[in-house]
């Protein structure tokens, strides 16, 4: 198998695994389908935007949970936004932990003050899933770059 074919196979296998393990869902396909000759780096650009926004949101969340009195509405707003952007790029596992986090925040508003360490645990799960998908996507883009550098094209 020559270099290009090998890289193509590596790309296909790696992408398949991301879908099978639930890191990505159909929405990521939608994103790839928006990419064309007039905008050949669209996916990388949008995902980079997602990484920037996510890091900002995670910082805001950490800050909000450090406060003496936690403003759960603020926490909920940040998690909601994170859920939205992760859903838009197809980052399914991040979206799911955001949903779980929000359900917990809702409970807070109804039942009053609960131990904040549960909130921190939710945040840790979100951070973990985010760093996993970030790592996976960076690897995906690296393989794509190698394939193009070797003179190959990304299989559709």
């Amino acid at each position: 198998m020559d270099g290009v074919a090998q890289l193509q196979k590596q790309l296909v296998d790696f992408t398949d695994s991301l879908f099978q393990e639930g890191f990505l869902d159909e929405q990521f396909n939608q994103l790839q389908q928006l990419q064309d000759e007039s905008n050949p780096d669209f996916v990388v650009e949008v995902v980079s935007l997602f990484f920037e926004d996510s890091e900002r949101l995670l910082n805001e969340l950490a800050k909000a949970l450090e406060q003496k009195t936690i403003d759960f509405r603020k926490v909920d707003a940040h998690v909601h936004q994170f859920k939205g952007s992760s859903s838009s790029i197809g980052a399914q596992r991040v979206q799911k932990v955001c949903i779980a986090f929000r359900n917990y925040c809702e409970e807070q508003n109804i039942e009053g003050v609960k131990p904040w360490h549960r909130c921190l645990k939710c945040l840790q799960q979100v951070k973990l899933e985010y760093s996993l998908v970030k790592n996976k996507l960076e690897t995906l883009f690296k393989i794509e770059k190698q394939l193009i550098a070797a003179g190959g094209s990304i299989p559709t």
Partner: protein
Amino acid sequence: MSSTNTENWMKDIGVVDLTGVGGGSTSAATKITALVVDDDSVNQTIHSKMLENLGIQNQVETIFDLILMDMDMPVMNGIEATRKLREMGVRSIIAGVSTCTRDEREQKEFMEAGLDDFQEKPLTTPKLVSILHKLNKKC
């Protein structure tokens, strides 16, 4: 998305000349303008690109055929924004685009504020095409 799919969608909503008079160009077709309202830059980028791929420009200073309205925005939510736009006399198609609201009453309120359509996020091109069908019916 093959170019065939995109072409079919464009024909479906009328932005591509079907008669062949214009030689397959957009000259004999409908021109559609749109405005994307979303406080999240990832969503705004994606929605704008979807529209652009269908031959629709995201414009600010013209009369819009279509407004995509996000529900949850911190300063003014989609319900208030829709109401304000209708009060201002905006007659564009306003489509609410939001995650499935847990509260059915909220969704009803959103529709009653003046929406023509509502689609759940994440937005896809087929959902956008189904919103754009409303344009032909409204004209």
